[in-house]
Every structure is written in structure tokens, then in C-alpha cells.
């Protein structure tokens, strides 16, 4: 498995995130896809992926990370914590604040 595939899948998942949907089914599907993509990364690849995002992308990623924390699977929290660390370094506390204040959840 090459790094490029994971990165491409990551960008696709970010881009196709359902923005304004009220459909719980759509949201859960997107959450599931995103979680699969995030957990497929090797620790060493995470930082590069985070740095490739713009400000809105980092905010969106942070929302998915916290969504992932809400429904932990056996190994998900460990990798999500690594994603959280890298996303925090780029997005700052502000990105976490916006997870808490967002009206439109992912």
C-alpha cells in the first residue's frame, strides 16, 4: 500500500463530506468512511496529510476526529489521538472551539 493512496482517499473523504445534510444516514456513512481512512494511515504519514489541508479542511478534520472519539472502536482512539495532536498543532485551540460551537455537525 503506497502512501499516495491513503492521502488521496483522505482528500476525497474531506472533499465529499456532506455539508448541509440533515440525513442521519448520510452523516453516519461519511463518518464511517472517514474513520476507515483515518485509521488506515501510518503514524508517520499523518503530519503530511494534515499540512496539506487549508483552514476549513483542518476544522472539518477536527470535527471528524471528535466524532470518532464519540464512537470508539477497538483501535480507533489511539490513532485518532495522533491525528488530534497534529491537527491541534495546525488549527490551534480555535479549531476545537469551533467543534464545540458548530451548528452544523458532521
Amino acid at each position, binding site marked *: 500500500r503506497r502512501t499516495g493512496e491513503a492521502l488521496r482517499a483522505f482528500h476525497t473523504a474531506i472533499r465529499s463530506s456532506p455539508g448541509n445534510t440533515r440525513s442521519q444516514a448520510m452523516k453516519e456513512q461519511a463518518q464511517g468512511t472517514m474513520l476507515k481512512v483515518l485509521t488506515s494511515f501510518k503514524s508517520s504519514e499523518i503530519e503530511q496529510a494534515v499540512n496539506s489541508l487549508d483552514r476549513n479542511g483542518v476544522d472539518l478534520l477536527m470535527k471528524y476526529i471528535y466524532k470518532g472519539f464519540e464512537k470508539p472502536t477497538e483501535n480507533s482512539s489511539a490513532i485518532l489521538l495522533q491525528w488530534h495532536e497534529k491537527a491541534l498543532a495546525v*488549527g*490551534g485551540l*480555535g*479549531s476545537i*472551539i*469551533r467543534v464545540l460551537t*458548530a451548528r452544523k455537525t458532521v
Partner: protein
Amino acid sequence: SWPLSPPEIALCPNNHEVHIYRKDGAKWSKVHELKEHNGQVTGIDWAPESNRLVTCGTDRNAYVWTLKGNVWKPTLVILRINRAARCVKWSPRENKFAVGSGSRLISICYFEQENDWWVCKHIKKPIRSTVLSLDWHPNNVLLAAGSCDFKCRIFSAYIKEVEERPSPTPWGSKMPFGELMFESSSSCGWVHSVSFSASGSRVAWVSHDSTLCLADAGKKMAVASLCTETLPLLAVTFITEHSLVAAGHDCCPMLFTYEESQGTLTFGGKLDVPKQSSQRGLTARERFQNLDKKASSDTANASLDTLHKNSISQISVLTGGKDKCSQFCTTGMDGGMSIWDVKSLESALKDLKIK
């Protein structure tokens, strides 16, 4: 609240009173205590030309204070609200003042000569929650209001009894009382503070979702917003037509720049750069104490490096006005007040660019 001169300041020490301090050389001494409110004083504004104070509080009242001899005499203003008042601002010509409250409306108060008392009119629609902050446009008619319903709005507070009809502005030409001239849509947090630029053609606001936004009437009210990396900002003011200073829960004032041609807001840097103190190692005893108290033997400093040790809740321009500010003042939850000199900041922080 600061008047122009002599150096005097009115403040509320988080209770029902207002204390006035006068600066004598380098020392501040308390010269007056204003006791009239039955609840915490939430807003104070000092009108420099007419030398009057207005205060508002959780007792749902406002008082206008005039100095008679050496005593400040209060005049009650009935606001007709059933929740706490939260903020108050004199209009630029000091013939009106606006009070924001938890009653989800703004009381515009003016003096009625015939009856020799203050009356008020209400701006209600479409405000849906507490009004946290207010700022007047230089034309004495338009008023910006930030609310807990996540919106920054500009209303007309035109009072025909005290002024002529205003001439058209970039925000619109028809300004009957209560008219909504602008309403924001971008934020997802309580709007803590609003500020008109000196010319009045721009309005900026900070929200609890850690964003700073600016609406430019010169660009058809286009809104530029910046998602900051900081904790929410609680106060904002323009210091030139393109530069803003904001501060909040990070306890540190920060510079932001508005680039008109691109319609963007950018972070310009923190203005409180702590001096580098020499890092000293911990003694063995201190390590054990840290382990005991905090379950960590980390050498990182647990206390804040910033000047303010708690959130900054207010920023006021002291000298130079909002177009060429040379000094501004911050006050915070730590009970401290700091005065910042713009020129000194520019020379001390090499990469700082105030446009």
C-alpha cells in the same frame, strides 16, 4: 470607561458600585464612589464633552450621572426591560445612549426637554437573544449590536426629537428608527464585541466560535471572516481603518489586518510578547512538590507568561481615535488594567506591521 482628560477612570469592581479614580502624576487615587444601583453594574460609559456618566446594571436600570460641585448626582432612566442590562454606550454627539439587555432588545434613551426626564424607545425585531455589545457609527444614528443569537446587526437609532434626518451612508439611505441596515450570517457563536471603524464604513465583530469577522459597506457589505487558532476573543476595536486589536480568553491582545483589495482578514501577531526569563532548573524538592500537587514533574511554567493573568474583557482606544490609535487600554478578569503604546509595540515587535 475613560474620559479624555484629566486622567480619570470610572470602573466597577464587580459589585453594585462605580468607583472613579484620578491620576496624580504616576499614582491613581480613588476620588468618588457612586452607589445607586441595586445590582451588579454591567456597563459604564463616560461622555467626554458633556462630562456625564451613564451606568447600567443587573437591576434593570440605567443612571445618568452629572457632576454637581464635587458630587456625582444620579438620574434614573427607566429602560422598561424585564431582564438585566448588559452594556451601554453614549452616542458620538452625547444626546442619546443605547442599552443592550437580556430582554432581547436595545433601549435608545434621549432627554425630553418638556418633561425634564429621559425617555426610551425600543429596538426589538429581529433580535432573538441577549445583546452583549454596542457601538455607534460616527453619524450618531447607526448602531451596531452584537447578540447571543450569533448575529452582528446594524440598526438605525434615529430619534427625530433630537436630531435632523441623517444623510445617506454606504449602509443605506433610508434610516427610520429601528430599521435593520445589516445582519451577519456567518458566525456560530455569541457575538461578544462589535466595533465600527472610524469612518463608519466598516464594522468588525468577534464571536465565541473563535472567529473575527468584518463587513465592508464599501464592498456591498461583503463579509470577511477569519477562523482564529486562539480561544474566543471577547473584545475588538479598530486602531486604523485597516487594523484591529482584539483580545479575549488567551489573555493577550492581538493584531489583525484587513486587506481591502482581497477582502481578507489576517492574523498580524500577538502584542504581548513576554520577556524571555532565564530558565532555571527545578530543585529536587520542587520536583517532589510538583509530583504531589500536579502529578507531573514537568518543568514547564504553569502560570501565564502574559501581562494579564486572566481573560481580557474590554479594549478601549485612549488616544488617537479609531483611525490613528496611539494608545489603547485593556482590562480583564484579573482586575488589571494595562495601557499599550502603539509606537512602542511597533518598535519592540520587529515583524509587526500596522497598516
